[in-house]
């Protein structure tokens, strides 16, 4: 945690977060005086998810996701917590930058959606074409902006030119300079009601979507696909697919195990809020499931590193994922039952 000063001269506490979107949303709420943690935002905004999109290819491999679509956590959590946010997109980059300066001038910190490749303060390893990274801009400095990036330990400086490129990068999911800031925030939000809404929505998304590629069914589908993949795609092709799954699980700022640990942290906080033993048990179970996801990553890495010279097999990796699917199915069923019984 580091203390910075916002454009209004108020102190701003930078909190190192696992996930950019929930980190930014939590920071915007905290700036308005609502004490709320990152996992709480993540849970209320129904951030946890699973999906495997066999028909969307990026760089030649299919996409799997461990979270709901970009922007959903912000949108849902803001609505459920009773915050009114002003959002804007722009056609003209210059107008977008002018508007950002104007709002910063009024003393308001601003959330932005950017392309991570053009944010030069990141190490090269982090930089890839992805149009969904969220940051908070604190105030303007000479030739640039002071930026609080929740994925980094400290706030950083970002040149204005880089920020403009990052905001207006083209390509899939382009943000078109998307910016958002709170206009009014309920100072005492009903965390219990919002948390219950988030849990119920999550259970619905994980269990009830009638398509075989989302939620628990998506996990089973992907697990079986991984088991078959060496025959279908050849060894290297299968490795490539497997590595893309593990990258989505561990690389892209998930707090470990594809957001499962962060969701366990949310359940833990919710358990205290409701004084519910059942939620505390579910938090423990989620942690255990997260550990299996980590094991899946370890097994996958061994397969990829040794290129077939190891006892680890694609069957084992897929099998671990099937175990996760089974246990998560039970967990979300129990959570739906528990959430139905709790009173807001």
């Amino acid at each position, binding site marked *: 945690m580091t203390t910075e000063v916002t454009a209004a001269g108020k102190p701003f506490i930078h*909190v*190192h*977060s*696992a996930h950019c979107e929930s980190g930014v949303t939590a920071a915007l709420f905290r700036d308005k005086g609502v004490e709320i943690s990152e*996992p709480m935002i993540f849970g209320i905004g129904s951030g946890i998810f699973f999906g495997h999109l066999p028909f969307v290819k990026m*760089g030649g491999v299919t996409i799997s996701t461990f979270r709901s679509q970009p922007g959903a956590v912000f949108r849902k959590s803001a609505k459920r917590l009773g915050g009114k946010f002003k959002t804007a997109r722009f056609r003209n980059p210059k107008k977008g930058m002018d508007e950002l300066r104007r709002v910063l001038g009024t003393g308001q910190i601003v959330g932005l959606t950017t392309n991570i*490749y*053009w944010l030069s303060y*990141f*190490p*090269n*390893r*982090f930089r*890839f*074409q992805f149009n969904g990274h969220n940051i908070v801009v604190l105030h303007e400095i000479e030739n640039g902006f002071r930026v609080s990036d929740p*994925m*980094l*330990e400290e706030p950083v400086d970002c040149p204005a030119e880089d920020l403009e*490129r990052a905001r207006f*990068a*083209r*390509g899939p999911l382009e943000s078109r300079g998307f910016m958002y800031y709170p206009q009014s925030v309920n100072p005492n939000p009903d965390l219990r009601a919002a948390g219950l809404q988030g849990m119920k929505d999550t259970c619905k998304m994980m269990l009830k979507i009638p398509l075989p590629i989302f939620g628990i069914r998506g996990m089973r589908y992907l697990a079986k696909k991984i088991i078959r993949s060496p025959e279908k795609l050849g060894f290297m092709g299968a*490795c*490539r697919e497997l*590595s*893309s799954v*593990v*990258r989505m699980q*561990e*690389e892209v*700022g998930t*707090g*470990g*195990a594809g957001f499962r*640990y*962060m969701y*366990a*942290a949310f359940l*833990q*906080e919710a358990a205290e809020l409701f004084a519910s033993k059942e939620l505390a048990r579910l938090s423990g179970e989620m*942690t255990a499931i*997260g*550990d299996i996801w*980590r094991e899946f*990553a*370890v097994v*996958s*890495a061994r397969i*990829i*590193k040794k290129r077939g010279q190891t006892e680890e097999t694609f069957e084992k990796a897929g099998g671990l994922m099937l175990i996760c699917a089974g246990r998560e199915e039970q967990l979300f069923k129990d959570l739906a039952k528990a959430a139905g019984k709790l009173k807001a």
Partner: protein
Amino acid sequence: MNVREVPQDITYYEGKKRACWALNDEGKYVIVPSSGWEVEAVVNGLAVEEMAASLEATRQAVLAGVKSPLCYYMELRQMTPEILGKTARVAAFRVRRHFRPDVFSKLGPSVLDRYARALAVTLDELKTVPQT
């Protein structure tokens, strides 16, 4: 995951640390900065190696006169003809056509300027590739 199990394998993030959620001794979830995990290095290494190999192959092709430098800089920026086309306001099929050195060499300054801006390189850089 316990706080002591948070991987601190390698300084893989170039000195930066990434946040992980883990349980402390009282069983409460806390943020723990991680300096890197070997699993990530292996998994990401596969993608990074392939990208580097493909970039090197393109560079050789440019030096051999088979492709234009435009193709090299596009790959360097991890773009596709579609993304580059949108950024530079050139139709994607024209971008692909400009990968041919003979077509590329006849391009006018306005198109080249748009490409240079889209790729964040100077006009001189855009006409050559690094020799090594």
